[in-house]
C-alpha cells in the first residue's frame, strides 16, 4: 500500500491534568484575556490604524461611561444571568436545553399579554405578581414538553428544544401582529406608556432595582439548590452517569421532568424581567440570542452561579462596548463582533490548557534505526 511512515516522534504529547492549583488556573485565564486584548489590538490597528488603547477606552465608556449606560449594562447583565441560572440545572444534568430562547419568549408573551389586557385594572405590585407567576408557569410548560418526551421516548432533547424555539418565535410573531400599536406598524410599541402599569417600579431609588433584587435572589438560591439540596445532588449524580443514578435508586425520568420544569420556569421568568423590567414591549428579538449566550455563561462558570455573574458582566460589557466603538469610530458592528469573538475564543480556549498539559518530547529516543 502506501509507503511506511517515517520514524518521527510527535513534538508534544497532550496529557490530561489530574488537577490544577487555583492560582495557576487564574493565571492561565488572565493570560488568555491579555492575549485576547493584544490580538484584538492587532486586528483593530491593522484594519483602521486606530490606537487600540483609545478603542478599549471607548468600549469602557460604552458600558460604564454615564450612569444611564451603567444601569443599562447592569440590566442586561441581570437578564442574561437569569437565563444562565435557569439553564444551569439542566446542563448540570447533561440535558442539553438549547431552548432557553423559546422559554424566554413564552414568558415574555404571557407577560406582555397580561400587561395589555390586565394593565390599569389592578395595582402594579399585584399585576407584577400575577405576571411573574404566569411567566414562570409558561416557561415551565415550555421546558416540560421536551422533558416528557425525553423521559418517555428518549427523544433527543437538543433538537427538540431547538425546534421549540421556532414555535415560540412564530407564536411571538402572531402575538405581535395581534397586539400591534399603532395599527399597521407591525410592532407592539411601549405598553402602557402613560400609566406605566405593570412596569417594574424604582426600587431603592434605582430604576432596575427590582431586576437586580430578583436575579440576585435567584443567584443565591440556585447556588444553594445545586450545592446543598437533595434534588441538586440527584441532578449531579444523574448528569455524571445514568447507571449510577439508577443504582442509587434515583428515577431518571422523574428528575429530568422536575429539573426541566425548574429550568424552563426560570427562563420564563427571565422573559418577564425582560418585558416588564426592561423593554416594556414584546418582539421576536426580546430574547435576542441571549438564550444561546447564556449557555456559554453557564458552561464557562461550571454552573457556579456567582462565577456566572462575572461572566455575564464580561459578555455584556463586550457587547455594550462593541456598540459604542461601532458608532464612535465608524467601525461597523461586525468589526465589534470580531473583537468579541477573539476575546471569547481566547477565554474558552484557555480551558484546554487548564484541563490538559503539553509534554514536549525529549529527543533522546527519536533516532531512526
Amino acid at each position, binding site marked *: 500500500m502506501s509507503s511506511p511512515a517515517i520514524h518521527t516522534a510527535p513534538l508534544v504529547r497532550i*496529557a490530561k491534568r489530574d488537577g490544577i492549583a487555583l492560582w495557576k488556573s487564574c493565571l492561565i485565564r488572565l493570560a488568555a484575556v491579555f492575549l485576547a486584548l493584544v490580538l484584538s489590538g492587532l486586528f483593530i490597528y491593522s484594519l483602521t490604524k486606530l490606537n487600540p488603547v483609545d478603542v478599549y477606552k471607548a468600549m469602557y465608556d460604552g458600558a460604564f461611561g454615564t450612569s444611564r449606560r451603567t444601569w443599562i449594562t447592569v440590566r442586561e447583565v441581570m437578564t442574561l444571568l437569569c437565563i444562565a441560572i435557569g439553564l444551569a440545572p439542566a446542563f448540570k444534568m447533561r440535558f442539553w436545553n438549547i431552548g432557553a430562547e423559546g422559554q424566554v419568549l413564552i414568558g415574555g408573551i404571557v407577560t406582555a399579554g397580561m400587561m395589555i389586557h390586565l394593565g390599569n385594572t389592578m395595582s402594579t405590585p399585584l399585576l407584577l405578581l400575577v405576571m411573574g407567576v404566569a411567566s414562570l408557569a409558561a416557561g415551565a410548560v415550555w421546558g416540560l414538553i421536551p422533558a416528557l418526551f425525553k423521559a418517555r421516548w428518549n427523544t433527543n432533547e437538543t433538537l427538540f428544544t431547538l425546534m421549540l424555539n421556532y414555535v415560540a418565535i412564530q407564536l411571538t410573531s402572531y402575538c405581535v401582529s395581534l397586539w400591534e400599536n399603532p395599527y399597521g406598524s407591525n410592532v407592539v410599541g411601549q405598553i402602557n406608556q402613560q400609566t406605566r402599569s405593570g412596569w417594574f417600579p424604582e426600587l431603592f431609588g434605582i430604576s432596575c432595582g427590582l431586576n437586580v433584587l430578583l436575579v440576585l435572589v435567584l443567584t443565591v438560591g440556585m447556588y444553594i439548590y445545586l450545592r446543598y439540596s437533595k434534588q441538586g445532588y440527584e441532578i449531579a449524580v444523574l448528569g455524571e452517569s445514568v447507571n449510577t443514578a439508577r443504582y442509587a435508586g434515583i428515577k431518571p425520568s422523574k428528575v429530568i421532568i422536575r429539573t426541566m420544569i425548574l429550568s424552563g420556569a426560570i427562563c420564563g421568568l427571565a422573559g418577564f424581567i425582560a418585558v416588564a423590567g426592561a423593554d416594556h414591549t414584546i418582539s421576536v428579538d426580546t430574547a435576542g440570542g441571549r438564550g444561546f449566550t447564556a449557555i456559554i455563561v453557564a458552561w464557562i462558570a461550571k454552573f457556579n452561579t456567582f462565577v456566572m455573574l462575572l461572566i455575564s458582566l464580561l459578555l455584556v460589557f463586550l457587547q455594550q462596548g462593541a456598540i459604542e466603538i461601532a458608532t464612535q469610530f465608524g467601525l461597523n458592528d461586525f468589526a465589534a463582533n470580531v473583537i468579541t469573538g477573539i476575546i471569547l475564543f481566547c477565554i474558552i480556549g484557555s480551558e484546554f490548557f487548564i484541563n490538559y498539559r503539553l509534554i514536549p518530547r525529549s529527543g533522546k529516543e527519536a533516532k531512526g534505526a
Partner: protein
Amino acid sequence: MATEYAVELRGVTKTFGPVVANDRVDLQIHRGEILSLLGENGSGKTTLMNMLSGIYYPDAGEILVNGKAVTIHSPKDAFDLGIGMIHQHFKLVDVLTATENIVLGLKEPGRLDLKAAARRIREICDKYGFAVDPEKKIYDMSVSEKQTVEIVKVLYRGANILILDEPTAVLTPQETARLFAVLRNMKADGKSIVIITHKLHEVMEISDRVAVLRKGAYVGDVATCDTDPQKLTDMMVGHAVTLNIDRPEPKERTKRLEVRGLTVRNQYGVKALDDVTFDVYGGEILGIAGISGCGQKELLESIAGLQRIETGSIRYFPADDGGQTEKELVGMSPLAIKKAGVALSFVPEDRLGMGLVGSMGMTDNMMLRSYRKGLPIFTNRRDPKKLAEQVREQLEVVTPGVNTPVRRLSGGNVQKVLVGREIAAAPKVLMTAYAVRGLDINTSYTIYNLLTAQKIEGVAVVYVGEDLDVLLELCDRILVLCSGKVNGILDGRTTTKEEVGLRMTNLQEKEGAAQ
C-alpha cells in the same frame, strides 16, 4: 537486511498518569506463527498491542516492522504497515452490510464497486475457510459472524500481522474451534497472528509460542511444545499459586435469597439468563463462575432491581429464622427494594460508571446510599463525611482528601471506597462483581478478608469472579454459569479447577438429575 521477525518491539513503555501499563517491553513476532500473549487482567497485554495498532503512542522505545523502525501514529499507519487488530469490542456499523463495513474508510481510486468488493470478500472467505454472507446486515449477525467480519475487514486491507484481543471470550466452544481452524489456515498462508488471552487451554491448543506479561513487564517467551499450563501459570503469576485465603466453615446458614426460574432477555432479545434457580445463604460465600458475558451481570442486576425480568421470582428472607415474612423482589425498583427494608449491598462491575460518581469526592459518594436520610430538603454531609473518614482510615484508602474526586484515585483505592460504603450499609446480602479486577495482590487480599469477615458475621456474600484459583479458595459453594444457564452448583472445598473450567465451557445436559 533480512530478519526473521515480522515485528519487533524494543523497550516499549507506556504510562497512564502514575500507572505504568508497559515497562520496557521487548517482544518479537515471527513470520508465520501464532503467538499467544498471556497475562493476568491488567498486565498490559491490550495496551501493548494497542500501540502496535496505532491506538496509543508509546512514551519510549521503538517498534520495528520487517526490520525497519517505524512510527505508528494511527490505525491507518498500522494498516499501511500490514498490521490489523480485531478488538474485543467490535467496531462495526449495525445498519450496514458486511461488505459496506469492510470497505468503509478505504480510499481506493475510482467508483465504489460494492459487487467487486463482495467478490473479493468471498475469495478471502474461501481461501481461509470463513463463513460470512457479504450482503448480510450486521444487526442480523451473531457475535461470531461479527467477529468474522472484523477479521475479514483486516485481511481485506492486506494485513499480514493480525492481533486478536480475547477473541474467544464471546464464542461458544464450536465457534472457537472454527475460529482456530481459520487461524491455522492463515498461519499456513504465512501470516503472523497474535492472540491476547488468559485462557491456558486455548494457549496450549492454538499457539506456537507464548509470550508472558506480568504487571506491564515482559517475563519471557517459551515454545508452546516445551511448556505446560502449570509452568505458564507460574510465569504469569510469578510464583506457584498458593493463595492461602482463610476460609472458615460456614455456621448457621440461614436462607436469604431464593431465586427460581429467573429468565432475562438482553437488549437484543437474546436470553441472558435462562431459567436460573439457586439459593443464597447467610454465613457463606457463594461464588459465581463463568466466561465473561454469560449472564453474571444480568443476574446481579436482576436481584438489585436494575433489570427487566421476563419470568421467575426472587424472594428475600429478612428474618433470621427464614420465617414467613419473605419479600418478592421481582418488579421492584431499586428504591422500592431499599424502602422495603431489604438489606442488600451491591458492588457492581463498573465501579465508576455505576457504583460511584467519578467527579465527586469520597464524602459525596458515601451519600449516594444515604442522602435521602435526615432533613427533608437539604443534604446532610456531616455523617457521610464521618463515614468517609472512617472508610479511609480502616481500609487505608490513599487519597489527598475525602473531597478529592474519586476518579483521580487508583483502581484499588476506588474499589476500597466502593466496598467500604457497601459494607458500611450493614447488608444481609452482599453482592460483588469482579471485586478484585485490576487490583494488586495486596488490595485483593484486603477485599478477600473483608468478604470473609462479612461471611463470619452472617452476611450472605455473592462473589462473581473470574480467577478460578480464588473462587476455589474463597467460596463455600460455586455456581457455574454457562450461556445464561446454571451449569452445576459445586462444593468449593471439594471441586477442582478442571471441573469448574469444564462446566464453564461445556453445558451439561442432564444436570438437574445429578444434583
